[in-house]
């Protein structure tokens, strides 16, 4: 593809290495003398550790270390992005299937694996809770010891936090509602399944420490490790090679602390590359069981939403409680509603710690709320598109009081999606359509620094702490620099993933990077433009105020247009030199806001599905999948399409096939790729169409908003609605496996035969 400016779709920066095999992911890095590590885990959800005998493992030649809790400081160092609840290694008790009790370090990976099998862990399996009901049962074992939750009134139970949001008087609205519908919905545990499993490495580095991780937030990891090993930040250097897919699963620290302690003990580099199975045990999406009650007036206006959502988080909080709080906050949807009451609870369980996952906590609740809206439309005899348009917030509406107002022409997005599918046109028998809207709050706080260097030949180096895990941040940031400083894209280098070189960035999450880091790089470029202006004014003896630098050109008052090089070369003279720009984009916290800040933008999406159902087998075929997102401005339209379509297909995964399956003792039965199914090239919609609405009304560079999660928010409710229209079967549990759809069709048919109202 041609062009390198904003709005073009140049080839991915770093793309060539990705098609030649030269791109080095963490497991590929050649590190001389690195030792290999392997986790020791127990085949149970929860167990009391009675003793660990590592003598046989240590007797193998080439085994350097079997590190257990006993080898670590007392009290056991704990960490976590929200609560410091996660031990470096299990101490006393394992809390979930996969919770490591030891780390083996050996000369080869094979040896480490063999030694790990020889570590004898005497243990007693204990009862575990791995469902909402189990965790809330009166006699449920406590997942976290109350000593980890000092001063917490909920510490006597497995509810970690209750998040309440609301406005208006729900009970009063309910009293005057014409129709009230209520439904219970479940969303299972699913996992990121990045094709690159998580990997970590650590090594002593002079008088400091070097840490490599597939992490999305290198600066956060740096701070966490520095705290654990009591070193200054300047002595902890985190390398974060581009992850091979993140999707949120690589945001936060997983087993890096164990690897760091091991590397310090053996005094050498130690690398731990997880298997896919271990990655399933390292990160997953928060499951959710929700009850939604929605009331309407005669005309289909939503009068109230009463939402209770029980999110099942894991044994340690990771970032899951934020997932719950932030994900449930806009649960009532992009609608203007007089009264809303939301209660979301984070519930601890003896399961894999859940974490961020594309869409955060929104897809779980959007599944329930959008489906309930359809139930309301049905009860009212209203069209499902019309009921949404009737209630949809218009630009500037404070649809969530005291929050960021509606920041886009959302109606335009909805109408475009509906038009593309031909909403309202007749359908062949056996097919149905479904529509769903979704919003997700963008980042509520943020801080991104960047450095941009304009070199004397006009080429550019950008230093940005964003992680490019496939979303294309490197390309977008290079395009911004290219746009502002005039260098062609292949003259721009973007340096990322090294905390010793790249300035601080808070994190790569919440689809923030185009907006926050984009603004930061833009500011750095503008800083350079100011210096160019000064230099040009000096060289040409004109008033600085009369020099304009724009779109990579320097314009003098006499109309002459100079390239940056035509200013830099004479400006620097024989000594050479470069211009350096500093960028900062900041979104400060608002302590008065329930989320700590109002979102920088909303991701808004409308998805419309046309599906065909085989009534005899329950197979769902997606004939048409239309996804439209409000992106403000597509800095790289091809990448926008790739992200939206990728999110859409990922959404089809959790909608149709993905879920953890547990045995009766809380062990995951379908660990690994054989029985955890994700979409292949044969599981796509017959027609997948994505479009972006661009009104340049976002807070990012050139009016961009964050995007890449929106297209996932609506898939499940839209598909289930299409299935219902095709078959009459209302399904409230995911995934919509053939068996589940078949069962629902039969139940609906039985109910119809008994003359019951359609359930």
């Amino acid at each position: 593809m041609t062009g390198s400016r904003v709005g073009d779709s140049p080839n991915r920066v770093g793309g060539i290495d990705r098609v030649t095999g030269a791109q080095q992911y963490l497991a590929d890095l050649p590190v001389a003398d690195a030792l290999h590590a392997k986790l020791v885990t127990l085949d149970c959800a929860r167990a009391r550790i009675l003793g660990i005998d590592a003598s046989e493992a240590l007797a193998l030649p080439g085994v350097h270390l079997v590190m257990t809790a006993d080898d670590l400081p007392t009290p056991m160092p704990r960490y976590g992005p929200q609560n410091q609840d996660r031990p470096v290694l299990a101490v006393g008790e394992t809390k979930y299937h996969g919770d490591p009790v030891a780390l083996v370090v050996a000369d080869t990976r094979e040896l480490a694996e063999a030694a790990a099998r020889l570590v004898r862990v005497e243990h007693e399996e204990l009862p575990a809770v791995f469902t909402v009901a189990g965790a809330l049962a009166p006699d449920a074992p406590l997942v976290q010891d109350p000593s980890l939750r000092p001063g917490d009134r909920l510490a006597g139970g497995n509810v970690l936090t209750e998040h309440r949001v609301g406005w208006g008087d729900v009970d009063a609205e309910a009293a005057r509602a014409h129709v009230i519908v209520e439904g219970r919905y479940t969303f299972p545990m699913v996992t990121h399944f990045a094709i690159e499993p998580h990997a970590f490495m650590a090594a002593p580095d002079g008088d400091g420490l070097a840490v490599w991780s597939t992490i999305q937030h290198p600066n956060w990891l740096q701070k966490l490790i520095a705290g654990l090993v009591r070193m200054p930040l300047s002595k902890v250097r985190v390398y974060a090679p581009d992850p091979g897919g993140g999707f949120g699963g690589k945001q936060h620290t997983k087993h890096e602390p164990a690897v760091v302690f091991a590397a310090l003990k053996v005094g050498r580099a130690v690398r731990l590359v997880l298997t896919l199975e271990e990655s399933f045990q390292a990160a997953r999406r928060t499951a959710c069981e929700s009850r939604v009650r929605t009331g309407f007036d005669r005309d289909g206006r939503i009068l109230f939403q009463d939402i209770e959502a029980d999110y099942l988080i894991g044994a340690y909080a990771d970032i899951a409680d934020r997932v719950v709080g932030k994900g449930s906050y806009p649960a009532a949807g992009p609608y203007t509603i007089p009264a809303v009451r939301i209660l979301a609870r984070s519930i601890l369980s003896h399961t894999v710690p859940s974490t961020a996952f594309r869409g955060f906590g929104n897809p779980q609740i959007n599944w329930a709320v959008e489906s309930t809206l359809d139930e309301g439309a049905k009860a009212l005899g209203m069209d499902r598109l019309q009921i949404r348009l009737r209630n949809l917030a218009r630009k500037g509406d404070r649809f969530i009081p005291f929050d960021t107002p509606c920041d886009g022409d959302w109606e335009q997005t909805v109408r475009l999606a509906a038009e593309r599918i031909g909403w309202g046109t007749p359908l062949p028998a056996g097919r149905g359509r479904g529509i769903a809207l979704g919003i997700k709050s963008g980042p509520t706080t943020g801080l991104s620094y960047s450095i941009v260097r304009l070199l004397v030949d006009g080429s550019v180096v950008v230093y940005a702490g964003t992680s490019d895990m496939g979303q294309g941040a490197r390309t977008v940031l290079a395009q911004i620099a290219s746009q502002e400083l005039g260098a062609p894209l292949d003259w721009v280098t973007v340096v990322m993933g090294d905390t010793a070189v790249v300035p601080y960035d808070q994190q790569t999450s919440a689809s923030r990077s185009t907006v926050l880091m984009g603004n930061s790089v833009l500011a750095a470029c503008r800083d350079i433009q100011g210096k160019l202006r000064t230099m040009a004014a000096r060289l040409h003896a004109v008033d600085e105020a009369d020099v304009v630098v724009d779109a990579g050109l320097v314009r003098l008052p006499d109309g002459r247009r100079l390239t940056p090089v035509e200013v830099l070369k004479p400006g620097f003279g024989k000594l050479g030199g470069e211009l350096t720009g500093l960028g900062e984009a900041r979104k400060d916290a608002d302590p008065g806001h329930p989320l700590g800040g109002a979102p920088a933008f909303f991701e808004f999406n409308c998805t419309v599905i046309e599906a065909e159902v085989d009534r005899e087998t329950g197979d769902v075929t997606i004939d048409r999948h239309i996804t439209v997102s409000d992106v403000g401005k597509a800095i790289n339209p091809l990448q926008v399409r790739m992200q939206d379509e990728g999110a859409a297909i990922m959404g089809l995964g959790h909608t149709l096939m993905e879920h953890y399956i547990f045995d009766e003792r809380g062990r995951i039965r379908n660990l690994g790729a054989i029985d955890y199914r994700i979409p292949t090239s044969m599981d796509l919609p017959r027609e997948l169409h994505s479009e972006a609405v661009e009104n340049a009304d976002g807070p990012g560079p050139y009016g961009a908003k964050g995007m890449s999660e929106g297209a996932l928010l609506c898939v499940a409710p839209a598909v289930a609605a299409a299935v219902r229209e095709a078959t009459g079967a209302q399904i409230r549990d995911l995934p919509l496996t053939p068996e589940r759809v078949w069962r629902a069709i039969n139940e609906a048919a039985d109910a119809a035969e008994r003359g019951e109202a359609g359930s």
Partner: protein
Amino acid sequence: MIANVPIEVTVNGARRAVDVAPNHTLLDVLRDDLALTGAKECCLVGECGACTVIVDGRTVDSCLVLAVEADGSEILTVEGLADRGVLSPLQIAFLDEGAVQCGFCIPGQLLSAHVLLEEHPHPTQAEIEEGMAGNLCRCACYEQIFDAIRTTADGGDR
């Protein structure tokens, strides 16, 4: 202690002699002994295709091939697709069509597409979907990968 077995393979046109442990896979040997890390490790059960390489003209999951089995065979890995630094039309099409996001699955995707186009110079949609089903892409660039395959097919050679 079980002795290593000497094998000879031709990798990307070059003869390579290497002593391998019987329990090491072709993936292990490519990555660890021959420093060809383009083949990636993910599922290790032949489901994801990240480790795909071409052995004697056919794609295999190199995680499910013992290195000793490959003795005497001709192997093409992603590192061998470009010709002295010049990208193949398929590699160019992958970039042009936006088929590459995180890139981790791409070596395997390219090799599957390479053989697909050898066997079906003008593949149908069904042939593409079936031919590429052994290579998972979680970024889900499937449509763009299809576009790249079609573009390459339309452009003649690979």
